[in-house]
């Protein structure tokens, strides 16, 4: 069983309140940082830890922090990205709901490291009840002197507030999030300038995911080098994986970033196997934006090596035979699922969530949705499959923000790995009339014989 750094205390009595959290060693990282360390020393520990952004991109956090511009006299800000909206992902909600002070503590320690005196947690509007839990935790922290003026007599001041969103996936993109936090439409900005130079209200800003900021707590407590001992290679530490779909035990799991994929999927400690005891068909390992891969390629790489739950191993083989760790929004498909229906569903999502700034994304996602809709509902043509391939190619890389890529990859990977299933829909339109068409008679690949 791997070490739990973030979820260790979840479920303990009173852990959601300040007293219970403190009794389990809470706020030690704030004491250590403010009393014994310089801000630069905290940044160094985070660099040594090898921590990578847990929101999906996996960019090294220490490096991101080191880009923060520090012009004299200009306030800097830390903004927590709690807009968690990537389909399949519900880990941040779990963390904020069941151990809210961990995020508050991570925000204080990280704000100190960055020299920010005013920080925000931007939380998606649908999580209103979670925002109330965070507001309560913040009020407790103010009352106990962990927030406000001259924290622990160190001379460091910090104000922390929750900011509620209103339903827009795109606001998880950091510049769209900042626009939204300024009271505007969530349209991503053209970069550069990056938020580290011009962010919230044109001031230098760091935007980090909830889990990233929570991980700063054990890193400061135990030291970056200790943290880096967990995991494998450049995938250090632990990662929260939110697991759903056709598995026996959906939920949020903290894994060591070297756990074999098969163990994660099949062992009772984690997902507990495929629901209904059926064969595994496909896996989306890191949220809907990452490429979908066939079950056998999830368990073993194209080279035949066991796949590990790490950034490198999950992307081994590139887009041809790999996927990505992404946000850790994991969902599995058994053989009763229809990949065409799922791809249509994904594309409908991106069409709905496109902000509308860039034509390739605004129009392309809609066109793909229409074509996928007709294939799924028995009205497709064989050439539609190549048309889809062509459309996704023209969206990828041609938009201001990565939503375009995120809309293209699930379509590309579905065609790459499951082309015969698309062809089946075109060839046998009457067999796909029932929305649950593969539930009774799962799709079987036609065996092709070659001389």
């Amino acid at each position, binding site marked *: 069983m791997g070490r739990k750094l973030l979820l260790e205390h979840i479920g303990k009595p009173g852990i959601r309140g300040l007293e219970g959290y403190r009794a389990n060693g809470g706020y030690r990282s704030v004491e250590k940082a403010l009393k014994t360390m310089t801000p630069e020393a905290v940044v160094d520990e985070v660099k040594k830890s090898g921590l990578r952004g847990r929101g999906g991109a996996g960019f090294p956090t220490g490096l991101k922090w080191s880009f923060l511009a520090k012009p004299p006299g200009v306030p800097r800000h830390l903004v927590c990205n709690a807009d968690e909206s990537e389909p399949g992902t*519900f880990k941040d909600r779990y963390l904020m709901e069941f151990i809210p002070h961990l995020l508050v503590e991570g925000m204080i320690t990280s704000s100190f490291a960055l020299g920010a005196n005013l920080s925000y947690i931007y939380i998606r509007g649908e999580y209103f*009840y979670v925002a109330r839990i965070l507001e309560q935790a913040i009020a407790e922290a103010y009352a106990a002197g962990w927030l406000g003026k001259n924290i622990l007599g160190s001379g460091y001041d910090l104000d922390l507030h929750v900011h509620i969103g209103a339903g827009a996936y795109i606001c998880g993109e950091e510049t769209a999030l900042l626009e939204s936090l*300024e009271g505007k439409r969530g349209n991503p900005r053209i970069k550069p300038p990056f938020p580290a130079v011009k962010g919230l209200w044109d001031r230098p800003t760091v935007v980090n995911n909830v889990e990233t900021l929570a991980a700063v707590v054990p890193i400061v407590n135990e030291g970056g080098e200790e943290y880096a001992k967990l995991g494998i290679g450049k995938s250090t530490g632990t990662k929260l994986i939110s697991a759903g779909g056709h598995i026996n035990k959906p939920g949020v799991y903290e894994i060591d970033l070297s756990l074999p994929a098969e163990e994660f999927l099949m062992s009772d400690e984690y997902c507990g196997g495929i629901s209904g005891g059926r064969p595994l068909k496909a896996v989306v390992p890191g949220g809907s934006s990452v490429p979908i891969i066939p079950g056998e390629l999830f368990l073993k790489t194209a080279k035949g090596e066991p796949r590990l739950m790490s950034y490198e191993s999950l992307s081994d083989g590139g887009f041809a035979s790999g996927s990505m760790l992404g946000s850790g929004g994991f969902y599995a498909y058994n053989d009763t699922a229809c990949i065409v229906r799922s791809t249509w569903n994904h594309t409908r999502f991106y069409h709905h969530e496109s902000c509308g700034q860039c034509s390739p994304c605004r129009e392309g996602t*809609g066109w793909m*949705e229409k074509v996928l809709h007709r294939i799924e509902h028995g009205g497709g043509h064989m050439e539609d499959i190549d048309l889809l391939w062509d459309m996704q190619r023209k969206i990828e890389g041609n938009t201001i923000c990565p939503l375009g890529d995120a809309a293209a990859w699930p379509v590309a990977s579905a065609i790459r790995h499951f082309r015969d299933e698309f062809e089946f829909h075109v060839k046998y339109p009457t067999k796909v009339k029932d929305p649950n068409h593969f539930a009774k008679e799962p799709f079987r690949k036609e065996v092709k014989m070659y001389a």
Partner: protein
Amino acid sequence: MGATVKAVTVREGTPPFAFSEAALAECRTIIARYPEGKSKSALLPILHIAQSENNGWLSVNAMDAVAQVLGIQHIEVYEVASFYSMFNLHPVGTYHLEVCRTSPCMLRGADDLITHLEKRLNIHVGETTKDGMFTLKAVECLGACGYAPMLQCGAKFHEHLTPEKADALIEQMRAENKRQNYTDR
């Protein structure tokens, strides 16, 4: 947003809107969270308050009142309200049932749940029952993928739903007949 461009409609005869004293006090608390001169940042949270005070939707009058509270142009409020999916620019039922339909929920039966609710309430997605009690909406991922299928009503998540549980929930709502808002504590 891309697929769901929402038109701001002026409705002749829309009832006048004014914030309650308690709501105005909350607006002031929220505005104080942002630096001086940056009060426009409070727009989303204040729109939520206005929506709760206006029976779950934002009329032009309600949006104009928000503009006044923040000292910004009306259009700055309309363009934002029409972008975000949680703001309703048309009246909704006492209970606004938002069923998640995105892939992880779909794998666990969201489509069947939506079909069941449509039959049960005798309306299609996007419609309101004749008695004004329920509006049914299909929404994108609500971050409850492991507890699917599910629906949100106001601030509450109703998870691990089955047709039976959904029916019981509807009966309970009918009996209580009390509006659920996102801002409910």
